[in-house]
């Protein structure tokens, strides 16, 4: 086993054992061509929990997060996912649409049944929370602003299973605190969150469980 795991005492939101986990996966693996990135990962995530995956860059944290979200398929026939709530995922590369402004980047992913006016109001609320102007285009934003927009979109989706890939990257201390507060608020409200970072320091405040990944492939038992 190449990982060490433990609890982080800093964050006190309670895991909810009364309802089923939002994610339950057993022995999941993932290859890219000949490279094995994830080997036999077994994980469960409950409401109120903030799981932090830390480790060096390029080790497979993002791939694991994408598999957890359902944005990448695990290897066929190896392991199984028994339970997975609808996930909201913030990609490491932000995955912003450059020809849409900040507001439309958020409304793009909102449910089609939502009236246009409600969708715009939702986008505006989250943009305001993360200090962004709605008419700004990604090309005119700094790395930190693009990261905040990507985070705003992940939260605006209104889902209870939220996965954030390097949420603190490119952000200064002030904005890291705002994001940490948002993560805590969601966990207290009953969401389950999983985060990755190559740097453990921003996790100290928010994580309730931490898995340190030291080498590739990622093995979690």
């Amino acid at each position: 086993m190449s990982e060490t795991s433990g609890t982080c005492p800093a964050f006190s939101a309670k895991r909810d054992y009364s309802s089923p986990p939002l994610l339950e996966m057993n022995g999941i693996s993932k290859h890219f061509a000949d490279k094995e990135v994830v080997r036999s990962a077994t994980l469960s995530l409950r409401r109120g929990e903030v799981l932090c995956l830390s480790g060096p860059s390029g080790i497979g944290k993002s791939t694991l997060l994408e598999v957890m979200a359902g944005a990448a398929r695990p290897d066929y026939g190896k392991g199984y996912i028994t339970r997975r709530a609808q996930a909201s995922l913030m990609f490491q590369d932000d995955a912003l649409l450059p020809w849409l402004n900040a507001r439309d980047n958020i409304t793009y992913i909102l449910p089609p049944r939502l009236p246009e006016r409600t969708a715009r109001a939702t986008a505006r609320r989250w943009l305001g929370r993360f200090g962004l102007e709605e008419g700004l285009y990604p090309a005119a934003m700094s790395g930190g602003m693009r990261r905040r927009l990507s985070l705003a979109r992940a939260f605006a989706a209104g889902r209870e299973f939220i996965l954030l890939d390097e949420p603190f990257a490119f952000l200064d201390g002030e904005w890291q605190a705002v994001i940490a507060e948002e993560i805590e608020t969601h966990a207290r409200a009953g969401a389950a969150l999983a985060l990755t970072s190559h740097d453990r320091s921003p996790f100290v405040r928010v994580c309730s469980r931490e898995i340190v990944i030291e080498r590739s492939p990622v093995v979690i038992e």
Partner: protein
Amino acid sequence: MSKVLLPYAFSALALGFLLWLANQLLGSGLAPGPLAVMEAWKELALSGELFRELGITVLRGLTGVLLANLAGIALGLAAGLIPALLRLTAPLVAALQSCPPVVWISLVMVWAGTGSAVPIATVFAATLPFAFSTTAQGIMGLNPRIFAMSKLYGVPRRRQLGRFILPGILPGWLGGFSAVLSAGWKSAAVAEFLGSHQGIGAKIFWSYHKLDMEALNAWALTLIVLGVILETAVITPLRRKAAQLESRGASRNV
């Protein structure tokens, strides 16, 4: 004279000089001088024939290009979204792209006789592979994580098409469309020369057939002038717009 017009004036003078030189070397029977060509051109313009034939050629070229783009975008979208289909059709598209227009011209002449069908079908066949390729390659170049994100959030297909896929392929498509327009225009003239009774290409053929060198040069001049107008007023601005959109999309993977 403004800096914009100076190159055009220089090119017109150079063309006039070449006509004059040919006239001096070959004589008026084979190479009429610039003044005789301009006189023939004026007569064609005043009689209305020039504009009638010009309209026919432009209409045929545009019809072929528009039909090819409608079909090319629809097929290119399907192939771009289904990589297996793109791999499967790649050799066929390469074969169509390298196929000279004369193949289509002779086939359509056999199937449909001479007339508008020949230039329209030739332009369609010559430009369809370009429209298909630019659309399919444009989709292949889009950020795959945005496809994954769209699937994850259940973004409806229509919204994906309108807000992600079509704006994403627009820069490449505009660049391709400018090349298609240029190729389509030339194909239309060649197809008319070989397989039609009307249009500028056909007029060049009949002038050549009757050895009416003044008229032949006047029609050729019309083709050249129209080509320059197309290049300056349509193709260059389209390429500029494509480059501008491309640079805006350069941040797509950050």
